[in-house]
């Protein structure tokens, strides 16, 4: 098991290097630092000296990949790629446009992000699996039919509608919770409850439909027939057998959902003014702060790879037949 984890982590290195190269290509080759400088400085003040100064302040004045002028190892290290991109491997993300340390900022914003993403994920999984099991229990009935119709309709509604509608109805008309904002400590729940609720509701449609298919496929299997023949009640079959066996595809789906979780929180955080990683990214996009976007791409990839590994490990817990070697 440990050997497997170590090996998987080693596999992750070339992938992260690839991610790094892509971001490097996007941020430094497609647009040279000169272009970025011109963009950041605006039209009026663009003199070659100003561009040089801007680049020097941020360390973009070095050659991109190879520094022929330097000697020895410095050929590789005194370059933009090594200074800006490769340093991300050791957690050095550099500074944002406003001079703040990106790594520290990310550390500060991790908490609120998790506080919204984790409950949404867990509660969402619970609600959708319950709903799907209920539909599978009443399969081929009118309840099942209208349940699926409802799911398709809910899938077809834009996620923005849930957010805007929820904010308008619950916060503005009913005045139950604040529209947006964030408070530290225990007070935070008042700000979190609405985004979490909306996150769960907007995921019900697609989630329920997918899990229902999984359960229905499982129900046609031989062991279910055997259990029924033995006289096990339908409810016991569903909860004891079908649910357990359906766990593997559910877990796979959950991993696929993790990048989506990131996207969800991106929108959610900026709508609700929660100072997490998502709103940090959006602010960076809107103020065209390349250093932050670059760091977030890298962190997003790291999170994804870790999530993938966690899923593989959780397979062994759910399904003892799977052994990781």
């Amino acid at each position, binding site marked *: 098991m440990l050997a497997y984890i170590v090996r998987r982590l080693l596999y992750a290195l070339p992938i992260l290097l690839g991610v790094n190269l892509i971001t490097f290509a996007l941020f430094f080759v497609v647009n040279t630092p000169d272009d970025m400088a011109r*963009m950041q400085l605006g039209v009026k003040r663009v003199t070659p000296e100003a561009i040089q100064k801007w680049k020097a302040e941020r360390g973009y004045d070095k050659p991109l990949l190879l520094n022929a002028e330097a000697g020895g190892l410095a050929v590789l290290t005194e370059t933009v790629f090594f200074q800006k991109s490769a340093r991300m491997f050791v957690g050095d993300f550099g500074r944002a446009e406003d001079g703040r340390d990106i790594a520290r900022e990310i550390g500060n914003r991790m908490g609120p992000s998790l506080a919204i993403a984790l409950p949404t994920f867990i509660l969402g999984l619970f609600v959708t699996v319950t709903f799907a099991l209920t539909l599978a229990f009443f399969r081929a009935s009118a309840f099942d039919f209208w349940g699926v119709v409802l799911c398709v309709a809910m*899938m077809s509604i*834009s*996620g*923005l509608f849930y957010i805007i509608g929820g904010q308008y109805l619950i916060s503005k008309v009913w005045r139950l919770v604040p529209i947006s904002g964030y408070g530290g400590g225990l007070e935070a729940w008042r700000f979190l409850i609405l985004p979490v609720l909306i996150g769960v509701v907007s995921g019900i449609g697609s989630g329920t439909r997918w899990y229902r298919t999984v359960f229905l496929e499982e129900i046609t299997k031989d062991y279910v027939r055997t259990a029924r023949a033995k006289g096990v009640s339908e409810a016991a079959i569903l909860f004891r057998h079908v649910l357990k066996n359906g766990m593997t595809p559910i877990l796979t789906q959950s991993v696929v959902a993790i990048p989506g979780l990131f996207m969800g929180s991106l929108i959610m955080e900026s709508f609700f003014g929660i100072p997490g990683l998502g709103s940090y990214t959006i602010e960076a996009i809107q103020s065209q702060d390349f250093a932050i*976007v670059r760091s977030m791409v890298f962190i997003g990839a790291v999170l994804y790879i870790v999530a993938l590994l966690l899923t593989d490990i959780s397979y062994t817990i759910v399904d003892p037949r799977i052994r990781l070697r």
Partner: protein
Amino acid sequence: MINFQPVVLWSDIFVWLLVLCAVVFALAVRRREHLRQPWVKLAANRIAMASATVLLAFVLIGLFDSLHYRVALEGKPGQKTQYAVEVLSVLDALATPLRTRNEKTYSEPFATRLYAKETVDVPGQGTVREYPRLKYGGKHLAEHEDEVAADAGFTAFRAGALAFLGWLAVAGVVSGVVGHGEAPGTGWQRIWRGETAFAWDAVLVALALMLLVAVPLFWLSGQYHVFGTDKVGQDVLYQILKSVRTGLIIGLVTTLVMLPMAVLLGIVAGYYRGWVDDAIQYIYTVLNSIPGVLLIAAAVLMMQVVIDTNPQWFSTAAERADLRLLALCFILGITSWTGLCRLLRGETLKLRELEYIQAAQAFGVSSWRIIIRHILPNLMHIVIIALVMDFSGLVLAEAVLSYVGIGVDPTMTSFGTMINNARMELGREPVVWWSLTAAFAAMFILVLAANLFADAVRDAFDPRAA
């Protein structure tokens, strides 16, 4: 005679290329019985045909909006003709009243007065603060402003009756064709008993609903702003019509752009295996591990810099917005081809072990020939399913991306920009709800139809489904 100069935007080329592809594909399928089978099955599916009718209506709007031109400006004789900067489409020409009759600012649906109070000079009373009359909305009512409901209801009823007559004509023609060469009335009976191979009943019902809604709406929109007007006084119905093309392009062109890459790489990886497979797998794992939004955000940011630093590339604002739309399609395509590629690779791995391919290899048929003649046709169902399944997701994604500021150009009308502009107005008192509601409703209809159609396509094409 109005002088005009046809303008072909890049996205128009893609749209018509897509139409061409669809026609060629349809002709190819028609001649082959085994390929036609799933389509026959799909044609018998009521839900599929009803949603296809709705989708077709959206596509028609999109196609009309994809024929662009520039009107010649009035100039002195002998002078070289100058063309207007504004790029119009055939849809704009058809909807000229909607496009040109702009109010000052917000107005409610069917309103006769503006949303905001203004200082008006009333002869004899000096200046008064009141809600001014709209320039166009309900102008024909003149003094009888309070008769909006009666007038609109009557107009809607007349238009509805006309729509019903039109529908009867269509239904009559269809039943005549269905019951060709039989006793009169048999075609009609067979359609409504559901005995036809093609689900005509569903198509006709969907058509009836659409006509009964659309015809009165358009009739009324000549006299009122049926969905209200937005901040700069533009008719919301017009914006919805313009958004359709953007949504369709994002949903369809994106898939078109990524298809060649996904199909080629997927098949090559599965067929040749070995280091080719490793390399391709590495590429898509890397792309896949970057969360989509972030990759899109990074790429769009970079594209924006390229566009801003090269203003000389574009002669009109429409061209710039158009190129940005296409670039967005390409970026979305690059981030979304990995899923399809993985599916195709897996299927090719399975296919290449089958006897008939082994036999072809033993006969010395070249690899490329095997891939094109034997493997590609057997993967088409996966491609078709992916194409329709991705569509609705992409339409929804556009709205989200435009909100984040990495979607289409802000000057381009789309569901996303509409929602984004209307979002802040919910804070006003009284609430400006109409543009938001209209955008969400239009998007819902489009995406729901696409989802239902996609499900039916999957059921018809997936060999695993019983």
